[in-house]
C-alpha cells in the first residue's frame, strides 16, 4: 500500500518534470538552414515581401487560435510581413516534409520564401519579434 502510494507520487512528480521541460521549449526561436523555397502555390496563399509567418494548426489545438491572433498582430506592426495559417491535419504532406511535431509550430520565411527560423509551440510576442530578425528587409525595400 505504502509502496503503491510512493509509486503514484513518483509518477506525478515525473509528469510535472516533463511538463516543465516541454513548456520551457515552447516558442523558442531556432534558426534553420533548409534549402528550397516554399512557393505561394504550396502555401495556398501569397507570401510577404519581407517575411511570412507560416503557422501550422489543427482543429484539436487549444492554443492555436491565440497564437494566430498574436502573430497577426506582430505581422501588422511591420511592413511586408504576412501571416498564413495551415491546417496540419489536412496538409500532412507538408507537416511530414517540414517535420511539424506539435501545434502551433510557426515557420518564418524570408523574402525568397526560404525557411530561416521556426518556433515549436506557442510563442510570446517577444519571441515572435525575435524570430522576424532572422528575415531582414531585403535591399530592394530598403531606402
Amino acid at each position, binding site marked *: 500500500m505504502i509502496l503503491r502510494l510512493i509509486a503514484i507520487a513518483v*509518477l506525478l512528480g515525473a509528469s510535472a518534470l516533463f511538463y516543465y521541460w516541454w513548456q520551457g521549449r515552447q516558442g523558442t526561436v531556432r534558426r534553420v538552414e533548409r534549402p528550397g523555397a516554399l512557393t505561394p502555390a504550396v502555401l495556398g496563399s501569397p507570401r*510577404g515581401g519581407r517575411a511570412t509567418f507560416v503557422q501550422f494548426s489543427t482543429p484539436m489545438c487549444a492554443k492555436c487560435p491565440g497564437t494566430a491572433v498574436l502573430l497577426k498582430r506582430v505581422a501588422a506592426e511591420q511592413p*511586408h510581413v504576412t501571416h498564413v495559417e495551415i491546417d496540419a491535419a489536412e496538409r500532412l504532406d507538408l507537416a511530414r516534409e517540414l517535420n511539424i511535431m506539435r501545434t502551433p509550430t510557426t515557420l518564418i520565411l524570408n523574402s525568397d520564401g526560404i525557411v530561416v527560423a521556426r518556433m515549436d509551440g506557442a510563442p510570446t510576442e517577444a519571441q515572435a519579434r525575435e524570430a522576424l530578425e532572422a528575415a531582414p528587409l531585403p535591399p530592394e525595400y530598403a531606402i
Partner: protein
Amino acid sequence: MTTDAAPVSQDIQIDPRGYRFGASVTLVISIVALVLGATTAGWVTMAILALLFLPGATVGPQATLQARIFKRFIRPRIGAPAATESFRPPRFAQQMGLGFSLLAVLFGVLGSAPGFFIFTGFVVIASFLNSVFGFCLGCEIYLLAKRATTRAA
C-alpha cells in the same frame, strides 16, 4: 498585412475552468483505481470513470456530469471566464480518456495487472497535467497520432 488561410469554423465555446475541474475529478477517480489495483474494485472504478467520459467523448465536454456540477455549484461563485475555448480539443482528449479507461477495464477483467496499471497510469498522467497545469496532452499528441495513422500520399 495578414492573410486568412485556415478555415475558422463557428464552434461551441466552453469554459476552460470547467474542463479543468472535470480533469481533477478524473484525477481523483483514477488515483483511487491505482490504489485499489488490478482488483474487481479497481476495474469497477475505471468502468465508472469510462461512463463519466462517455458524454464528453461523444457530445463534448460540456455534456458531462462534471460540467453540470461545475456549472451549478462552482461557476456561480467564481464568475464568468476571462476567455472561452473550442470544445473540440477537450472532446478529443475525452475520447482518448475513454479509450484508455476501457482498456484498463479490459485488462482488469482479464486479470492482467501490468495492462491495468499502464492504462490507468496514462489516465492519471493526462488528467494530472490537465487539472494542475491546464496542459492538454491529448491535444499535443493529436498531430503525431494523425501523422502515424495516415499513410503518406
